[in-house]
C-alpha cells in the first residue's frame, strides 16, 4: 500500500519538479530504472508467493540498481558501453517477463 502510494508520490514529484538529469548520470539512469522495475516486479511476485520480505526487497532493489549502473559504467570504460547496456536491458527484460508471468499465474490462474 505504502509502496503504491510512494510510486504515485514519486511520479507526481517528477512531474512537478521537472528536474533535468545531470550529464554524468545520463547513461546510468535508464538502466537503473529498468533494474528497479525488475526489483519491483520481483517484489510483487514475492508478495503473491507469500514470501515477501521488506529487507530482501530493499536490498535487492538497491543492489539491482547499483550493479546495473556498475556494469554500464564498466562497459563505458571498456568501450563496449552501448553493447553492455543492451545486454543488461535484455537480461533484466527477461527477468521482468518471467516475474510478470508468475504474477499473472497467481492472479489469473493461467
Amino acid at each position, binding site marked *: *500500500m*505504502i*509502496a*503504491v*502510494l*510512494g*510510486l*504515485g*508520490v*514519486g*511520479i507526481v*514529484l*517528477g*512531474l512537478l519538479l*521537472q*528536474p*533535468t*538529469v545531470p*550529464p554524468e548520470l*545520463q*547513461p546510468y*539512469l*535508464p538502466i*537503473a*530504472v529498468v533494474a*528497479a*522495475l525488475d526489483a*519491483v516486479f*520481483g*517484489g510483487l*511476485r*514475492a*508478495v*503473491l*508467493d*507469500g*514470501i*515477501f*520480505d*521488506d*529487507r*530482501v*526487497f*530493499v536490498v*535487492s*532493489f*538497491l543492489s539491482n540498481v547499483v550493479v546495473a549502473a556498475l556494469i554500464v559504467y564498466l562497459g*563505458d570504460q571498456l*568501450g563496449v*558501453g*552501448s553493447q553492455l547496456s543492451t545486454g543488461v536491458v535484455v537480461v533484466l527484460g527477461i527477468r521482468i517477463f518471467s516475474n510478470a508471468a*508468475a504474477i499473472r*499465474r*497467481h*492472479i489469473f*490462474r493461467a
Partner: protein
Amino acid sequence: MRPDLRTEPDGATVRRRLARAFSPKLNRGQLLAGLLCAVLGFALVVQFRQTQDSSLENLRETDLVRILDDVSQRTSRLQDESDELRSTRDQLLTSSNQEQVARKAAQERVDVLGILAGTAPATGPGIQLVITDPDGELGAVTLLDAVQELRDAGAEAMQVGDVRVVASTSFVNDSGGVRVDGTLLRSPYVFQVIGDPKTLSPALGIPGGVLATVNQSQSGSATVTEMDQVVVDALRRVEQPQYARPAETPSATASP
C-alpha cells in the same frame, strides 16, 4: 525473486496475501519500500521527459562520436559530389565555349565559301566596268576575256548585269545580246567587281587587253570606274551535287 517451485496457492490465499500487502502497516520496511518506489517513480518520470526531449546532449560519448563520424563522412561525400558537379559544369562550359568557337569558324567558312560560290552577297572596294556594244559585234568572247582578266587580277566576287559570275558561269552568244548562265543580257554590260581597284583597273587597261580590244571595235566602248564600295548582291542558287559527297577530312568541319 527466487525460483518458486512450490505448489500454486489457491485463489483465496492470493487474495489474502494481496489484502495483507495492501493494508497500510506503518513499519520501517514498508516505509523503506515506499520510499524506494517513490524514487523509482521519480526516476521513471525524469527519464521519460529526458527521452522525450532527447537531443544531442543526452547521448553518450560513443554515440556522439558515431554521429560526428557520420556527419563528417556525409560532409566529405557531399564535398566529393560538389567537386564532381563543379568539374562537370566546367567541362560543359568549356565545351560550349569550344562549340562556340567552332561555330564561329564554321560561320566564317560559310561566309567565305558563300562569296566564292556566289550564294552570299558581298561588298567591298572594287571597280565598275561598263562595256557597251550597240551593234553586237563583241559578243560572249569579249565578256569572257574580261572575266578572265579580272580573275587574274584577283577579283574576289563579281556580277554582270544581275547575274553572279562564278567558276561555272557560261557566256553564250544570242540574238541581241549574250546569254550569261541562261539569262539574256543586252548592251551595256555592267560588271560589278570586288577586288583591289589599283590592281583591277590596270589589268583591264594593259595593251591588247579587254579595254583595248573593245575600244578598237567600231561601235563598242568600255569604261572602268574605281569605287570604294561595290555591292555584289546577285545570288546564285546552289544545286545539291548529285554524285559528289563530302569526303571525310579532318578540316571538313563546315560546308557551304
